[in-house]
């Protein structure tokens, strides 16, 4: 039967905030219910650091220092996503990249032929300019596969917690 099992691969985009862990929980639920492969990507935003270096606000040492911080954050977030997935018997492939966030996330979605890209709730733009430059917005607009924007903290926690620990 042609059903949701046609969804074979799910890519979840993890940002550097607590909210993205909720997004990961929802992606774990989806992967488990659809029996899909789960991939989680975190992109170290080196472009913003290079821009600050170019603007002369940063010196080279700061650029490297902050890149190291971001990479450490990325590893921690991805480790946590792995724990969330494993706790529910879901295998996850974690991917840590460096560069321009929206470019690498949408590129990875194409590369693994993701059937769904799961991402966190978009921030309220304060100006039209934000709509063009916010990385979340750019992922949403630039992806070529269906994009699922995760909302509703309480419901997600319920779904995740309600999932039996092991298959």
């Amino acid at each position, binding site marked *: 039967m042609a059903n949701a099992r046609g969804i074979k691969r799910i890519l979840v985009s993890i940002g*550097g905030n607590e909210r993205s862990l909720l997004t990961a929980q929802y992606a774990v639920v989806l992967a488990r219910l659809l029996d899909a492969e789960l991939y989680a990507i975190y992109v170290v935003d080196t472009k913003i650091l290079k821009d600050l270096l170019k603007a002369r*606000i940063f010196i080279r040492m700061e650029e490297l*220092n902050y890149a190291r911080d971001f990479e450490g954050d990325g590893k921690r977030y991805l480790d946590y996503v792995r724990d969330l997935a494993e706790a529910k018997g879901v295998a996850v492939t974690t991917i840590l990249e460096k560069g321009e966030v929206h470019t690498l996330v949408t590129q990875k979605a194409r590369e693994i032929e993701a059937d769904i890209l799961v991402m966190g709730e978009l921030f309220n733009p304060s*100006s039209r300019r934000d709509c063009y430059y916010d990385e979340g917005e750019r992922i949403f607009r630039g992806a070529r596969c269906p994009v699922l924007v995760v909302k509703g903290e309480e419901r997600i926690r319920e779904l995740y917690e309600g999932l039996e620990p092991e298959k």
Partner: protein
Amino acid sequence: MLLTDLLTPRLIKIGLRSRDKLGIVEELVEILVNAGKVADRGLLVEATMAREAQGSTGLARGVAVPHCKTDAVRELTCSLAVSPSDIDFEAIDGKPSHIFFFLAAPPGMSGPHVKALANIAKLSENDAFLDGLRLAPTPEEAFRIISEEETRAD
């Protein structure tokens, strides 16, 4: 990270007493101290001056962005000072500085810190905005100008 999320009129000062880099940094720190945002005043001044010693944060267009990552603050904090008088902040274009955005963050807040700096960099490209800010007569008016620029629909 919008500046108006970090600033309030209370964290903005129009007119500066000092004319040298250390004095300016001390006044920027004092604004935060008065707002109860600093755990260790001496450490904050020291960390900021240590960063300046590695390379001046005096940019072009009369803007300077002194900043540091330090345990002297508990959260990402920002103050702004505007000086009608010329200040030598060792700017990259050799010209005097008038607008000083000061940012300090604890070690665990790299993401928001970088985003706030990127926002300042973007705002600092707009000459009309900088002219307005430099001429702002009160902290309230300076805050309004920043808020207007950050929500401008273009």
